[in-house]
């Protein structure tokens, strides 16, 4: 019995070994670049009424594809699977609201400079009367599976997290009263509240935004300092220098982020 289990485990380990090819060559050969993006994170990456994925990050992905003279292929990803997709070579690049943390840097290649930044806050009905993070203790709080701030919020404030795989499920659960708040990125909460949708008229972002984290686009770790990684770093610098992201914020109606404005000023001067 034990032997069978061990053999099974060894097989499972062997099957998941990582394939690494030179991504730039792969893109040239294929004539297309495969980018993992969000499709439920309005307006960074979301579905338009015709079912096409659009948004600020999709525009950025298109820009990368144009620079490489390649066609753009989009693969929708969620927080819990995007890094594995990149490691397995199923996608060439992540542009999916990915927070840049030290832990994640050990498995994928984070491109610097970071292109965006967001912090942690909650979306809650006004009737919940939240004022302080400490009020979340022992209350049901909705979350997204695999978000980096889940652990920090749980350890600091002790809520009972109820996590789902996708944002639509969370918003639905929140509206039905299955949880008193939704702990999430302040950027998305901002854009949800300012969308003018009457559904959110009685909701607010009541707490102080905490733990600002920069976002990064990511390439496979072995290629971070190779030609592919260097190319993406230049692209990211260029975005800040030309004010591409500032422009896209305007286009998609996103509240200007102080981080992006600061990066633009800094790189413009260089």
């Amino acid at each position, binding site marked *: 019995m034990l032997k069978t*289990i061990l053999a099974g485990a060894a097989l*499972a380990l062997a099957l998941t070994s990582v394939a690494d090819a030179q991504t730039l060559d792969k893109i040239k050969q294929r004539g297309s670049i495969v980018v993992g993006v969000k499709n439920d994170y309005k307006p960074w990456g979301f579905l338009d009424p015709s079912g096409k994925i659009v948004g600020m990050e999709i525009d950025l992905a298109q820009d990368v594809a144009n620079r490489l003279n390649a066609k753009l292929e989009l693969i929708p990803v969620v927080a819990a699977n995007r890094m594995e997709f990149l490691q397995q070579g199923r996608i060439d690049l992540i542009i999916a609201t990915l927070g840049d943390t030290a832990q*994640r840097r050990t498995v994928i290649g984070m491109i610097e400079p970071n292109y965006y930044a967001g912090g942690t806050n909650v979306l809650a009905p006004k009737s919940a009367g939240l004022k302080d993070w400490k009020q979340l203790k022992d209350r049901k709080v909705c979350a997204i599976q695999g978000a980096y701030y889940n652990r920090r919020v749980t350890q600091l404030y002790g809520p009972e997290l109820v*996590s*789902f795989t996708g944002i639509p499920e969370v918003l639905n659960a929140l509206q039905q009263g*299955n949880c008193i708040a939704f702990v999430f990125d302040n950027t998305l909460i901002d854009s949800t509240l300012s969308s003018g949708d009457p559904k959110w008229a009685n909701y607010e972002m009541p707490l102080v935004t905490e733990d600002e984290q920069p976002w990064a686009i990511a390439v496979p770790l072995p290629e971070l300092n190779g030609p592919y990684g260097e190319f993406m770093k230049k692209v990211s610098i260029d975005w800040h220098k030309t004010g591409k992201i500032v422009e896209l914020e305007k286009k998609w109606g996103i509240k200007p982020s102080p981080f992006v404005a600061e990066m633009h000023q800094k790189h413009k001067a260089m």
Partner: protein
Amino acid sequence: MEAIADWFKWLNAAHGINLTIFYDDFDRARFLRGLLTTLWLSVVCIALSVVIGVVGAWVQGSRFRLLRRLVQGYIQFFRNTPPLIQLYFFYFAVGGLLPRVTDAHGALVPPVSNYAWAIISFSFFAGAFNVEIFRAGIEAVPRTTVEAAEALGYSRLKAYIHVVLPLAFRVSLPALNNNLVNLVKTTTLAYAIGVSEMLYAASQIWSEVLNVREMMNVLLIVYVLVVGALVWLMGRWERAMRMPGYGV
């Protein structure tokens, strides 16, 4: 305890096999809580689904056509739809229609929690199969035996409880075994509505610690052990209930 934690820390440092559940208190606590939730969900759902099966099979033999139709409708509904969709349907569609109640903190919440919906949904799902499994067992009880019971003055209910069911149960056990094993595995679906069972706990851990490979192996091994224990118990039960000269 310290020594075990140190050994797994060394394993991570030396070989990159990162099993945080053995040295990180936070991860270990939530993984164990996940395991307990899985066991608790399994036990409660197994008990409820067997009760549903026994009662349903009895009603199926009823003289009233409407009752029989109702049970038939229930079986068709739960057997012909995927359990994940049932779960979503209950939690998001039905749950949203129920009147809200006030909880201990004074907030308006739905009356049925995600845990309760998981139990309801899985019990009815497995129960639908159990009804059919017990019906097959009941049909295997010779008509003459039932007639003998009737001749001795048993009512329909008493004959069912004392004569038919004990015999039918023995015939049904192997099929019931299969269905209950399936039920234990189905409890993993509860993670879709935020019930912190084992798969949910593991996915929380691997998306933070990024040890997908290690946790997948842990999950597989723990499930083999949990389901193995259930199969062993059921096997013992089957042997204990064996009647020489009857059935399997």
